[in-house]
């Protein structure tokens, strides 16, 4: 049994919360640079230039790329041979979020009740997802996400007869309806299969993939490529002000489902799409 101190987990979450919000990931920065070279719209190129300049300023001054530092989502991969010492694992993670958002000058964007809407003032609670695996690994994936893009996301409970064409139509419709609202260029995570709760979770996890990655299954890779091409043909463009860079990537994930079901969840994300990973 491997011993892992809760205190160490708190420190890791604190540091990663700050890092994820202040440093644009290289895969996104490269995608934005490449898009700028290919973007035919003058306004579109200006928007992409501002986004790249902004990322450089944020990195240099160690301030958040976007003022919406999001609701924190953390995926925990816990080896079953790891024993957490010195306290509660979940509380250690929440304390890391609390410290990161306070010490890192990140915005506190969480309200306690959806109707009463009183701010919790430390950005907790984060949303935690645990996966238990064999061995003694301990991994954290942080994905703080802003609301502008989250609000444009959708879940479709399709019929099996709708098939892959129906799923593609749902994704394209969602991107079109989002238009300028989610801060395009977007990153789009799609989860197909499972049920009412697993499809959105899969869509969220799809956003963790590196921007230039492809799905290993040929039919899913083809779906990703077709969707990216079509979404970039809508004309929405950077910030919705016209152009050919509407999405930087479409990542699709699939999983088993019921004989009567075809859930398709579309999680829209923005040009900042934050994620940070560590292994303790």
């Amino acid at each position: 049994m491997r011993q892992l101190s809760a205190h160490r987990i708190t420190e890791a979450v604190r540091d990663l919360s700050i890092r994820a919000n202040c440093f644009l990931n290289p895969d996104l920065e490269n995608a934005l640079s490449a898009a700028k070279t290919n973007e035919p719209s003058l306004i579109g190129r200006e928007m992409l230039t501002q986004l790249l300049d902004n990322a450089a300023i944020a990195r240099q001054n160690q301030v958040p790329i976007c003022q919406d530092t999001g609701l924190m989502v953390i995926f925990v991969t816990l080896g079953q041979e790891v024993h957490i010492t010195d306290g509660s694992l979940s509380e250690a993670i929440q304390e890391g979020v609390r410290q990161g958002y306070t010490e890192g000058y990140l915005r506190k964007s969480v309200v306690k009740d959806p109707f009463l809407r009183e701010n919790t003032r430390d950005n907790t609670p984060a949303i935690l997802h645990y996966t238990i695996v064999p061995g003694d690994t301990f991994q954290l994936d942080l994905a703080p996400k802003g609301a502008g893009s989250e609000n444009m996301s959708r879940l479709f409970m399709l019929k099996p007869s709708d098939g892959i064409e129906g799923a593609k139509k749902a994704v394209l419709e969602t991107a079109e309806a989002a238009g300028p609202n989610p801060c395009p260029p977007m990153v789009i995570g799609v989860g197909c299969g499972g049920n009412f709760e697993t499809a959105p979770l899969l869509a969220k996890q799809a956003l963790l993939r590196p921007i230039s990655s492809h799905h290993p299954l040929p039919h899913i890779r083809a779906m990703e490529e077709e969707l990216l091409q079509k979404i970039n043909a809508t004309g929405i463009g950077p910030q919705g002000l016209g152009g050919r860079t509407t999405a930087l990537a479409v990542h699709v994930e699939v999983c088993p489902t019921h004989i009567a079901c075809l859930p398709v969840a579309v999680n829209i994300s923005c040009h900042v799409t934050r994620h940070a990973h560590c292994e303790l």
Partner: protein
Amino acid sequence: MSIAITLPLTKAQTAALHAGDIVAISGTLYTARDAAHKRMLEDYEKTGRFPFDMENATIYYTGPAPAKPGQVIGPIGPTTSYRMDAYAPFLLDHGETGMIGKGKRSEAVVEAMKRNTAVYFAATGGAAALLQSHILSSEIIAYEDLGAEAIRRLEVRDLPAIVVIDSQGNDLYATEKAKYRQKDVLGE
């Protein structure tokens, strides 16, 4: 080349702005987003007053990140505007002439803009650190308990923005999208 504009925005100024104009905004504006809008309208109902002079005012839809020591304000990009659509027509009818945000507006907002010769600017969503450098001063003037959502009076210099919807109701999102749409790829 951008057009320099100075706040407060008179109706003579707004009437001369057109969708697609790239502007650099200087002067005094006010921040307000979801909770502040809700409360402003509730307070007006009770007292007949707004927390600042609404005549020719420009509201920036934003909730900044906290300032680091020595900074005037933290990163401060626009939030998505449609969530303020329920409140904007009332404010436009009471003197507001400019709104800064990002994303689409409702038919009712566009009608109120035409009726009151107002403009809607988009600032670059997610360019919060860049926009932060254009803020000269910041003071909380109402609803401090709302934290990031409190109403702030900001002095800004050359804040970059673009006129997305003008006082005639022209919408840059619609016109630019149509120019770059590839109907053959979409099978239309």
